[in-house]
């Protein structure tokens, strides 16, 4: 080949084509998505236009402060390399049948996130709605035991223990209210007179996991009871 301008134009336009086709056009289509109410109602002025009813909460919710800190821990531990955060539609894979979420996740579910952690590997289960499956104080206790050593709650799991996010210390006076509640006779429990307490990073990570919930409808993805 001798026609160099043609060669160079070809090289340039080959990538420019997919850059505009995939990146710029998805940015155009999705870049202006905003939060919305769970359902839309016809406008008073023009019934053919659907609008958000006033006074209804907007979704997806904005993340809270400690949850944001927990997400930083999730990122720094590389949780994404074994856990996804996306629920596929009913009938494609078994995401629904496994009870991982009440509806598929859509683009709007991710718009409040500075870093989107969809993931591509399920050496562990999907976490998009883990806060909807494991919740409240019981869920908090479960997560701490599971992070401290997954074998306590899920024997045979290949998840690594994150015991370095916890501190084992001598009980000084009264036991801490944060101390991990080991099952009776657990071989992972600390010796008598000692307790295991979560560090701030562990607490933040668990609050983040508890906050991961798909418990709201979106106009384009309603939860069907």
């Amino acid at each position, binding site marked *: 080949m001798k026609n160099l301008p043609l060669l160079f134009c070809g090289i340039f336009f080959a990538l420019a084509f997919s850059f505009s*086709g995939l990146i710029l056009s998805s940015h155009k289509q999705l870049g202006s998505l905003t939060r919305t109410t769970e359902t839309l109602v016809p406008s008073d002025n023009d019934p053919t236009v659907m609008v958000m009813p006033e006074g209804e909460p907007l979704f997806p919710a904005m993340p809270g402060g400690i949850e944001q800190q927990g997400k930083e821990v999730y990122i720094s531990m*590389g*949780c994404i390399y074994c856990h996804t955060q996306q629920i596929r539609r009913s009938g494609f894979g078994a995401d629904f049948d496994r009870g991982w979420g009440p509806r598929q996740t859509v683009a709007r579910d991710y718009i409040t996130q500075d870093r989107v952690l969809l993931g*591509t*590997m399920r050496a562990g289960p999907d976490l998009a709605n883990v806060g909807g499956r494991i919740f409240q104080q019981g869920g908090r206790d479960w997560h701490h035991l599971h992070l401290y050593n997954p074998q306590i709650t899920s024997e*045979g799991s290949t998840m690594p223990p994150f015991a370095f996010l916890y501190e084992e210390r001598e009980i000084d006076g009264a036991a801490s209210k944060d101390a991990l509640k080991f099952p009776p006779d657990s071989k992972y429990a600390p010796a008598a007179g000692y307790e295991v307490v979560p560090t701030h990073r562990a607490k933040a990570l668990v609050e983040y996991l508890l906050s991961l919930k798909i418990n709201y409808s979106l106009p384009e993805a309603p939860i069907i009871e």
Partner: protein
Amino acid sequence: MSNSSNESPYSANSAAVRAELSEIDSSIRSAALFFVISAVSWLMVGTVFALLAAFKAHEPDFASTFEFLTFGRVRSAHLNAMALGWGNNIIFAVGLWIMARLCRAPINHKGLLLVAGIFWNIGLTVGIAGILKGDITSVEWLEIPHYATPLLAISYALIGVWGVMAFRFRKGDHVYVSQWYILAALFWFPWLYVVAQIMIIWFPARGVVQSVTNWWFAHNVLGLWLTPMALGTAYYLIPKVLGRPIYSYYLSVLGFWALAIFYNWAGVHHLIGGPIPVWLISAGIVASVMMVIPVIVVGINHHMSVVGLHKEVWRSPTLRFIVFGAISYTLVSLTGSAMALRSVNEVTHFTHFTVGHSHHGVYAFFTMIMFGGVYYMMPRLLKREWPSASLIKIHFWASALGITVMVVALQTGGWIQGLEMNNAEIPFLETVQNTIPWLKARSISGVMLTIGHIAFAINIAWMLFAAGAVRAKQGPTLLADTKEGGNV
């Protein structure tokens, strides 16, 4: 096309042309050697992280008290050490050297190239230390923290410009297929890298636009950076060693443009079923299937170029590795096209099948061809032969068998994992436990690859710090007995 010019450097028969090539080789020697040594060092570092990650995947308690060695970080340290440490350094060595030779343009200002290379490796060291420290970004293929990436981008620019400059000041007006591939890749990589950094890390795009950008980038690192460099190397060295031209000029044109047009749309197949507009994913699937065209075309062209000369291929260290890589290119690409089909993807997505597939591409194809390139280049740079044919054989067999075991284990185990994961009656924990035997087989394959890498590194070190016996050695180091000499 070989007859288009008697002076064409890829069929160098005359002493004058060989002398010219020798002059070019010596102009790039110090930089190329620096890149080879860096690449092999990163290969060893990446191998250690690989073994740790592989072992931790089935023995989660192993070294689990060290935060910096937690699975997610070690795995990412492995990926970046291999892709940007081994991959980019060996591309800078072999790719720039081939470019300089084909352009018949000695590299000027080689000191600056060396400085850029040093900064590339400093940036990478800082980046990988940052990953282990916990500043990992958790964006796949872009894990290096933001404080190291600008240094990487700047030093890349200085290195990449060299290839373009060599091209700009080339002699002769014929441009060989390897030059198209290398020139295009040198131009594509910085575009991909800068766009991905800006849209994901520096000024994050809204929601899943990040994910689309992420996979456009990550898949194109393979498709528009590693692949063209490896194909360019194969296109240069197959005719060079065998002393006969590439089978068809027109097939090489078709293969190049089909790759350029289709490959860069394919990456979104990593998001099949995800929260992405369906038309985007369909575009990715169509492009992935269209990749069959350049793959078959390149496969035919390479196959027809070596057909009938299998003995020569087998005794040449260079071609033994390169032909293994070229065959792997066909196999891995056809697997990849199949994996993009929704019905297949439903099983393979989110499983170890994909991990097996990426190692099939990056190791069995790219890395094997680059090993072949090093076996050809080093004797010409150092004017010294390879010290040990046995070490080359150990390297070949350990790598070839090791990667075969790895791909078979991960893809069989991954397929089973996918089928079980799609059956909600099987508890999730059971799907995890059933992967363990396959993950153990992966660890064994990792040990085999390690043996190969150690043999490779010893041979290189031996050659660099050669004893008199190696320096005095006459004739190329071949892998089988032969009456007459020949190219390596």
